[in-house]
């Protein structure tokens, strides 16, 4: 038990990681939702639109938790200096780069499977800047300070998106049962 406790990152670091995941995933989800709202208004009442929003926010919550859990899990496996120590700012970098990569990759995956070569290329194109930024932040203190500051600011999102996600999840469960 003590061993596991030692491996798990500090709670405030995990909270910062969760904050970043919630911020990125929910913001993107909301962007998509508001993109759809004008067409929804043609055939859906407010209640129905809110129900769709509840599904999206509930899914975003689960997606954010999954991303955070993956980061925590990896940080417990890898040497502590790689990810566990400073998980907050490191998560900020990892999630941000992954989000940009995901945004760009979505455009490329339209109707055909891209193939292993392309997937490997994307992995390198995503991994290289991610590692570079992590090293930069690790070795250059002012950079790390800036990222840490940003990460702390974003962690506030936990107190906004987490309740929204939880309420949405309850709404969805309620709708599915009744």
């Amino acid at each position: 038990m003590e061993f596991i406790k030692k491996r798990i990152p500090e709670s405030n670091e995990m909270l910062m990681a969760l904050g970043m995941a919630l911020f990125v995933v929910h913001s993107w989800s909301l962007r998509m939702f508001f993109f759809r709202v004008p067409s929804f208004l043609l055939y859906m009442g407010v209640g129905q639109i809110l129900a769709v929003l509840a599904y999206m926010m509930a899914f975003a919550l689960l997606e954010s938790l999954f991303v955070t859990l993956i980061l925590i899990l990896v940080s417990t496996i890898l040497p502590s200096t790689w990810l566990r120590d400073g998980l907050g700012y490191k998560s900020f970098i990892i999630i941000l780069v992954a989000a940009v990569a995901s945004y760009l990759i979505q455009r490329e995956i339209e109707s055909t499977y891209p193939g292993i070569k392309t997937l490997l290329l994307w992995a390198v194109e995503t991994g290289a800047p991610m590692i570079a930024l992590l090293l930069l932040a690790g070795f250059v203190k002012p950079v790390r300070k800036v990222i840490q500051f940003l990460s702390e600011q974003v962690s506030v999102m936990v107190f906004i998106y987490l309740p929204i996600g939880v309420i949405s999840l309850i709404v969805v469960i309620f709708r599915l049962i009744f």
Partner: protein
Amino acid sequence: MLNKRRDFLKLLSLVPASVVLSPLSKIVGEPVKNANHIIILVFDAWSAENVQMFGYPRRTMPNLEKFSEKAIVYHRNYSGGNFTIPGTASILTGLYPWTHRAFALGGVISKEHSKHTVFNVLNPSYKTIGFSQNVNSDTLIFEAGKDVEKHIPFGSYDLNDRITYDASIFQNDAYSAFLAFENTIFNHEKGRDGSLFGGPIIRLFDLENEKRLLQKYGAAYGGNLPNNYEMFALPNLVDGFIKLLSELTEPSLIYFHVYPPHKPNFPYPKYLNKFNVDNYKPIAKPDHPLVIGPKTYGLQNDARLHYDAFLASWDEETGRLFEYFETSGIKQNSTIIITSDHGELHERGYYGHTAPIHYEPLVHVPLVISTPGVDKRIDVYEPTSNIDLLPTIAKIANIPQPAWVEGQVLPIFETDTDPLRSVFTFDASQNSSFSALKIYTIALIKGNRKLIKFVWPKYTKLEYYDLSTDPEEMNNLVDKKPSDLSQMEEEINTVIENANKAYNK
């Protein structure tokens, strides 16, 4: 032969419908009441204008022709709308789109009419079964709720499983789940996903799976596979339906809505090769102002070729189904209705069906009904509508006509019908379902005359055609002020005014 497209229809349309009908209805007599099953078989995006039986030069559906040898063939049947939602809602409710209000892409039937469906009318006299391979009509089946005793999940006959909302966990809230998962969280390769990380990962898995399916099954379809959101093989649909029919133990109403011949059209290559060399050249028609990004004549014809070949491929499979109807005895003791939710257009700078241009290929849909007592082909040339199906089914089932229905019992099932009745088709896909109709296309068909009214931003126009002399709808006669033009326009205006009354208060 091929250059004289629809010539025989022109001739037939000159014959008053009542002359054709009266003697035939006497020959046939009354269809048998209380048939065992009532089967509504809907082929999605199926235009009558691409079937030889209805005047098309290419013989795309020989098995349907054979099936129709002992059936009633309605030659001038119209869909309620020009895409799945209004078209299907009109079949299910017997109402025009301005009444059921399911006319937006993604919309559903209004609360007022959501339980006014054929399922509700026939339940509990019949076991009610619903299936749709089109997600949009599937949501309408979900909307019917418990009136559908057995709702067969969307992907039951597909090769892969990409759809989320049809999972059993979402049965109580399928419409919300559909809009959230299929339209926003996962976009199924149409634009970006609402799920930032999950979306692309799921896409990769799905596409990899599809690649394997194409390798396994694609050769039969020229390297592709028919698909809606999921991939499917044509024989599986027929096999699935036959299995369903074979398991019926009590009189049932079965609504079975299949995706073919909806695009993408991936036919068996032999039909592409066959039609590619038949020298059929459709008339070139001018681009329509409401068509965005017009397609060339060549592109339209290529799409038409694939559509026709896909129809022929689907007909090859349905041949087995029609044979099963015969050998199982279902055809002898059940009513089988074959139609479509809307047509498909390959002209005027367009191919597809969501453009609001209600020319014949888009709204003229096949209707073939086999019912006990009909032992020869009966051709009906009166204009009819898919909103007539519900009242006709109610009559066949010996159930009183619902008060809310707007359709009428179809000719043959009713002897005293008006050949000059008004039949409408309607599109208001850009108009809110909750407000007065301000943006729409409406077509009124009365005998051989057709008036189309376009009311769109920066485009308001009337088009009047005499289908007996101009079945291709090339000569707009509005400027010649035909005698019944003002009367038909008045009728359209009255329909819209009445529909708007509740919203203008």
